[in-house]
């Protein structure tokens, strides 16, 4: 990719774009829906997860791609778009951390400390980028240690959430065998875990590739990672937070089948 011309859309990149687009759309729709839910329940976890989806997947990620790829925009505008994207990504990343802390580790001082440390560290990363190559390097060339380290935060906090979700699902699955857990809630926790694993993997791979000087979004390898994982994350989030009735019936029937068999 050069500043004078946009990238050609070969099949691999088209597939990656499809995965990315599905992720962005799902994040936008579900983020808004969960924030609307938060206005009714007035509970912090709903605010956090809604903000995380809307600001990171729904707005921050496409704005970073816009700053990087919209070569027809003026340079100051692209830098401004990147600054806005970093602000949104930062708030969204913190929302992921607060969600993990308040839902999975309420009352744990280390979890609260981790979120505060992430906030301070992200500010330091922005400072490092501004003191070094600046936002222009991040926007035009996807470069800068501060920018890379900043991006690493969202991957790490999402990976933490994935770990906590999958551990919680493991406990709920054991409870389900005794009739102590709702199979739909267990499934939702699992789907959030899967979505988190998928998005953390894309984020981590992209960041590591960046450290190695590879423009992840422009490679076939990047497309091979982004396309399936973007679709998996989007599909998992959709089934978790906006599940079709037929899917819920299937989850309940599947959970009831072993109980019926053991009772027969």
């Amino acid at each position, binding site marked *: 990719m050069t500043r004078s011309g946009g990238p050609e859309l070969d099949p691999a990149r088209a597939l990656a774009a499809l995965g990315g687009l599905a992720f962005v759309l799902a994040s936008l729709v579900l983020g808004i829906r969960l924030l609307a839910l938060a206005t009714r329940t007035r*509970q912090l976890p*709903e605010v956090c997860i809604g903000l995380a989806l809307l600001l990171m997947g729904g707005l921050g990620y496409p704005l970073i791609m816009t700053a990087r790829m919209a070569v027809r925009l003026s340079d100051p505008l692209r830098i401004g778009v990147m600054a806005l994207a970093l602000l949104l990504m930062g708030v969204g990343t913190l929302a992921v951390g607060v969600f993990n802390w308040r*839902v999975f580790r309420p009352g744990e001082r280390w979890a609260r400390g981790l979120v505060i440390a992430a906030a301070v560290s992200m500010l330091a990363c922005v400072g490092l980028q501004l003191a070094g190559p600046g936002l222009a390097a991040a926007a035009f060339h996807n470069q800068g240690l501060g920018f890379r380290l900043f991006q690493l935060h969202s991957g790490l906090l999402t990976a933490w959430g994935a770990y906590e979700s999958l551990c919680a699902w493991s406990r709920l699955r054991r*409870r389900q065998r*005794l009739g102590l857990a709702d199979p739909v809630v267990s499934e939702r926790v699992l789907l959030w875990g899967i979505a988190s694993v998928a998005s953390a993997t894309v984020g981590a791979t992209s960041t590591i590739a960046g450290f190695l000087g590879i423009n992840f979004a422009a490679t076939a390898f990047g497309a091979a990672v982004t396309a399936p994982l973007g679709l998996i994350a989007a599909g998992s989030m959709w089934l978790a937070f906006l599940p079709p009735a037929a899917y819920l019936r299937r989850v309940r029937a599947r959970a009831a089948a072993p109980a019926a068999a053991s009772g027969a």
Partner: protein
Amino acid sequence: MLGSAAFTWTCAEIERVTTLSELVARGTVRLALKQAGLEPQAVSGDQMAIVLREILPRELAARAVANAAKLCGEIALRIGGRNFEGGDAVVDVFKRLGGGK
């Protein structure tokens, strides 16, 4: 970490009706809860009643407690009337996140 009221009460009852020490009684209940996917600090009375019927008899029998099933059944009956509340933030939050579905 402190246990819930249901956990503390059950451990005390098992210690009272068996020859197990406090430490062994608490450890046995903890193991049973782990098998059930429950946590000592959050387990409710209703959940503990099911653990008492489904898992603890086996665990107590493995520790040479005679009449384990009968003892657990009696404790399960008694805990039923005590309304020990529990709490699980993960379940509560993910239930709400489905928007009532």
